[in-house]
């Protein structure tokens, strides 16, 4: 790859990284649920950007349509529909907070050193363009049991979420009526 193009890719990568990680931190830290979910949307879009940089437009498209298009919008709808006042007390323990940040930096430095120190930089990539038909074929043959199990995961999540979200006090009131 030409040197100029490499610099271009590097700067786009940096920009997308800052956007993704910054909005992820914002999603955690902002107290307002609506702004938090919008920040989450930006994070998820940033991840789609990484997939584009990695020459995987197919996955990027899925990331955008599934995560940004449906899941994040669903979260936004839920936030708008439920009671918006804060139901949790904020208990801050600054020592734990700093310990957590410190641990994160240590782990990131550790993993970073291993990755940068390894031969990953010298690795030559000459992958061909991905054949989407092959992905579809793999899903229906090799990975078919995983697909079945994925369906069961979704149904267990729905069943569990319904049971947890169901308000039992409401049914009790109806009973006494």
């Amino acid at each position, binding site marked *: 790859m030409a040197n100029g193009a490499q610099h271009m890719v590097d700067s786009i990568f940096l920009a997308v990284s800052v956007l993704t990680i910054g909005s992820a931190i914002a999603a955690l830290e902002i107290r307002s649920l609506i702004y938090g979910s919008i920040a989450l949307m930006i994070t998820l879009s940033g991840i789609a950007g990484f997939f584009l940089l990695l020459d995987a437009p197919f996955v990027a498209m899925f990331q955008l349509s599934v995560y940004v298009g449906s899941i994040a919008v669903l979260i936004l709808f839920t936030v708008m529909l439920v009671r918006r006042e804060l139901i949790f007390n904020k208990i801050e323990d600054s020592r734990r907070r700093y310990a957590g940040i410190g641990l994160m930096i240590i782990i990131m430095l550790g993993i970073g050193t*291993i990755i940068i120190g390894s031969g990953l930089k010298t690795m030559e990539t000459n992958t061909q363009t991905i054949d989407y038909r092959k992905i579809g074929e793999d899903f229906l043959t090799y990975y078919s049991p995983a697909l079945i199990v994925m369906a*069961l995961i979704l149904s267990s999540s729905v069943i569990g979420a319904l049971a947890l979200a169901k308000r*039992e006090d409401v049914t009790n009131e109806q009973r006494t009526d």
Partner: protein
Amino acid sequence: MIEFTSTPIILTILLGAVGVILPVISIIRKERGSSLYGGIAFGALIAAICFVAYQILSKHIMPAAIFSKNVLVDDTFGSFFAIAMLLVSIMTTVGSFNYMRGRSNTAVYYSLILLASIGMVLIAYSTDLVMLFVAWELMSIPTYVLAGFNKKDPSSNEAAIKYFLFGALSSGIIIYGISIAYGLTGSTNIGDVISGFSKLGPDMMPLALLAVGMFIAGFGFKIGLVPFHMWLPDTYEGSPPTIAGLLAAGTKKAGFAAALRVIIMGTIALNVDWAFALGIIAIVTMTVGNLAAIMQKNLTRMLAYSSIAHAGYILIGLSVAPFSQIGIQASLFHILNHAVMKAAAFIAAAGIITTLAVSHIDKLRGLGKRMPITSLGLVISLLALAGVPPLNGFWSKLMLFGAAINAGSVAPWAPYLAVAGVLNSALSLAYYGWIIRKMYFEEGESDKRVKEPKSIIAVMIFSIIFMVGIGVYPDPIIEFAKSAVPNLSALSTIH
């Protein structure tokens, strides 16, 4: 592509269909707290375990394999874990009959147990990292909900949220490990990954080790290895006690199945000295678990710490696996034994909590007279956990420590694992003995016998027969465990 008549697929279809249909039936019937759903779930689980037993006895399954060309393999290793996991699920289901009576969402409760069982069973059958991860999630997500099933109890909420956050973190770490492995080898099939790892150049080796380290950390969270155990006591204490049994006896063991499939094979193929590190983790885990258990005043919390300690014992077998023939066999034997012992202890605790509403150890005074059968079941399971002969726990601990001594000729540090194990077993007898003393040798406020729940009695009788029976005649299970050990010499051929 795997055949649709193979054991894992049939189990998935059978348990999955019943698991999904149960909530639908409950919507149609609109009846609360019915024991019908428990009955249906019990029937499905019995059918599943009978099918696995039939497949083993009629030799329709492959000998224990390390690799396969598919995402699942229908082998003895998977079937061994399937039997252990389904036993735990059956004990949990039957033990819950009484606990769930009159509560809401019973159908969902049993349906989630069934779905989690599929996940636990499939982990052991997986020979592909994507399949393993998907099965891991199928095991985890229903148990997150089950841990928080007592919605109005703040400690149950706390249990669920802690379990969920650490579970999500561990899933993230595992998927990171999988992505590194895939990036290095271009495959998600465990066999291809390991053979790809063994062909890596020295500059890429640190990345392969990083991937294995990620797997150890990710699976270690669910297994409860120290230092990844912080969430475990709060979760086991706050969850419904029957579910704590499922977590301690079921999901933890599924974590070991995953560890055996990935880490052990990976470390042997990579020819690295992870074994010593695993040995140190084993000693720290059992010591921390036992020391913390001594200080507990709550029965379920004590059992939670004891299950951390037992993860340490099982890890002895895994860490000496490269040096001793019986290492993995001993671990498998102890996994099956511990599954039944721990499930029995937690279900006895559930019986005590539902009948007398106590879980503080001081309140157990005179329990031997008030609930004789539950007490007897609890005592035998505690003695078996401590490894007192002639109960089943004695034989598996003997094999584990024997394997460690046996490995001493190759790895000079290995016999110290046996020494640590014996000292820890003696230590554990202190707190198990303390509970037994309270129940049988101290006078309670009342001697009046209370009515023990029938479902708990059924589980207790089954587990007493199992623990004493295997203790007196352990040979068939030892042979079964032996047949479930994959042939490790096959790994050396890929170098």
